[in-house]
């Protein structure tokens, strides 16, 4: 499409939204790049974490379409070493939330993983690993990959067919809903 990616002015609304959702102060970052330097997944992404931070400082919508924000493994390396105490994983998390809302998800598989995970938690109170694995296999269209691993695990009883539902599911689900009430 060749859309213009010129920066014009800071989008304060988006910037504030990122700060609210992440709980991080974006302007605390002086872009030293130590996060990108230590990030284990950065070499496999479209943009490194410090560019995510810079785009977030601009409130640039372009960052919402990046893969990096979905592939952050939350390993905490950046936060541990950041000279300014910024938890970049939280910023990626906030951006991925907004990206999903705006329909700009660059890594559909990662988004599915998160969605299915949270769905499983919400419906059962715990994660049912087998249904999560199956869902991921469907999403990544890797139907037969890793069967050599999955079948023995299944046979060892490591993948129980049915998940455990917690007893007090009703009250548990309130923890998801009452939050939404508070939002409005």
């Amino acid at each position, binding site marked *: 499409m060749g859309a213009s990616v010129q920066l014009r002015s800071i989008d304060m609304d988006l910037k504030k939204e990122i700060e609210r959702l992440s709980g991080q102060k974006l302007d605390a970052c002086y872009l030293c790049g130590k996060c990108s330097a230590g990030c284990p997944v950065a*070499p496999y992404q479209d943009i490194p974490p410090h560019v995510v931070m810079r785009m977030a400082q601009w409130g640039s919508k372009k960052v919402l379409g990046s893969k990096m924000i979905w592939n952050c493994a939350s390993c905490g390396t950046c936060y541990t070493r950041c000279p300014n105490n910024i938890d970049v994983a939280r910023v990626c998390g906030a951006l991925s939330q907004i990206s999903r809302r705006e329909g700009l998800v660059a890594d559909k598989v990662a988004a599915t993983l998160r969605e299915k995970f949270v769905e499983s938690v919400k419906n059962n109170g715990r994660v049912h690993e087998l249904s999560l694995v199956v869902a991921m296999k469907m999403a990544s269209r890797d139907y037969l990959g890793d069967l050599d691993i999955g079948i023995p695990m299944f046979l060892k009883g490591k993948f129980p067919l049915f998940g455990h539902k917690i007893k007090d599911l009703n009250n548990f689900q309130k923890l998801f809903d009452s939050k939404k009430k508070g939002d409005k």
Partner: protein
Amino acid sequence: MARVGVFICHCGANIAGKVDVEAVSEAAINIPGVVYSSHQKYSCSEAGQKVIIDAIKENRLDRVVIGSCSPKMHENTFRKTVQQAGLNSYMLEIANLREHVSWVTADKDEATKKAMDLVKAAVGKVSFAKPLTPGQVPVEKRALVIGGGIAGIQAALDIADMGYEVVMVEREPSIGGRMAQLDKTFPTLDCSACILSPRMVDVAQHPNIRLLTYSEVENVNGYVGNFNVIIRKKARFVDERICTGCLECMGKCPLKKKIPNEFENGRAPRGAIYVPFAQAVPKVPVIDKEYCRYLLSPDPDKVEVKEGEKKPKRKCGVCAKVCTQGAVDFNQQDELISEKFGAIVLATGFNLFDHSKYGEYGAGKIPDVITALDFERIVNSSGPTEGKIVRPSNGEKPKRVVFIQCVGSRDEAKGVPYCSRICCMYTAKQAILVREKLPDAEIYVFYMDIRAAGKGYEEFVLRAQREYGANYVRGRVSRIYESNGHMVLKAADTLVGMPVEMDDVDLVVLATGSIAREDSVELANTIGITTDNHGFISEVHPKLRPVEVPREGVFACGACLSPRDIPDAVATAGAVAAKVGVLFSNDILMSDPMVAEIDPLKCAACGACVSVCPYSAITMEEFRGKKFAKVNEAMCQGCGTCSAACRPGAAQLKGQTDEQILRSIEAVLQW
């Protein structure tokens, strides 16, 4: 009845922008005792002062309230103004409408109301002011310089050249400080020792300078012009008056090359008897009592010996045996020297950040990760490797050398938030030195920003890049680790937005930041001054009074104030000398009359004030059988502690009496 005049200053828009100065001025006229009130754009200007003088004369005012900036700024100005109008200069009260009101209050109405309250309080207080007269004290025209680095050396030489006596106290066995440890200096690349050592010798030979090395300041008492200082001269175990500096003793010490030499940053050894470096001044060794075998062995005279047993003998003592002069004296004791000074100069320098806090850079445990100070010693021809740049792990020449800037600096998480100011420049210098000694080496400098704002500095950094082939990479390094005998470095080039993984790094030099001396707060407490929250000495005003500290007669220069390079250290040292010269141009000083006084008739002689006075300025006296406390006005610093402790209310701080304070509170509550 008092006749008070109120003058409200706009301070341009500084006050008037937030405070309705007209309303404050109008309200003031209704305060009991106020007979005149007006407002001006700039009260401190010549025109503003004239308004005040004229108003005092025309309205026969006997006391004045000025609503303006902090008294720290212009109290002295306005004291002179009222004096010119014929009033005692202490018949003045300042209401701080700027720092306490307009600069810190968001709401205009609130600001105006607060300003009115402060003016009321000031009127209440000044109504009970009494004329005060300053006392006179003589000036002891001798200066104490603490610290023998380049800043202290420069200050001492300049003061001594003005004809005043100087005592220099240095904690280490030799003067020279940090500069003596450096190899070359930026941006001229002249040899540090070559330009420093002549000055060190000048200090030693100057007829007006007395040098006390291996000594520390223990206690400071008194006040400007009359400080009493106690200096501890640590036992050196070598008589400075006899020793010829032949250093024969050093070669014979059995611990020779066994103890890490602090001067070499621990990268070369020394003995128990040693001079830290060849050009040391004085060239008189010290014996380190923590290591010396003789001094550590039990004293035969103090050991209880059972019958039939032989008295034990002291170990070693070789140095004493080889000394042809008999200068070694194992019986020497620490000596306490008491001296009087008119001025004190602090030049205690700085320390370097300890990178053991950086686990990601190996926490100091990877042998080929060294600090910039290590590098200075290694590259120096009199250093541990005689100037050859080699890897500490195997002694081989490094092929790939990486410099990392901002280690500890600009790191709120693990270090200090500020920029250490010198690292960009010394790193560029060190990169150039690598190229000069290792023409084939690859050189990388990982940086965040290059701060090269000095004369010839930017050009110097560009030369390092363009002529000496230092590759500057913008990005902070995340991790250095050893793997299979290789050193691996993980970083990012933020300008291309790509991670960098560098294998086979041979030598990493960390630009560790400058921090305050770990005991700077303790020293500040000894002298009665303050430090900032990083431990650097606080100046009176960072721009206008950059070398004065908030205790009169005490000055500071060099890196104990904040990180700085040699030119700035030398410049501030010169500035300090000029300030000391100004002080010493007076034979007599006026003392602040706002000191405590004790009414002997009210005094119950309980002694509470004597025990709380931090300046030992109060003593118990007796007159015709009645005991009472008395203040030595010259020693009193006007802190008011005695006044707070005195139950009968006999101790009062002049200019801040209980009555004045109560009246100002009353004024706010009543009117």
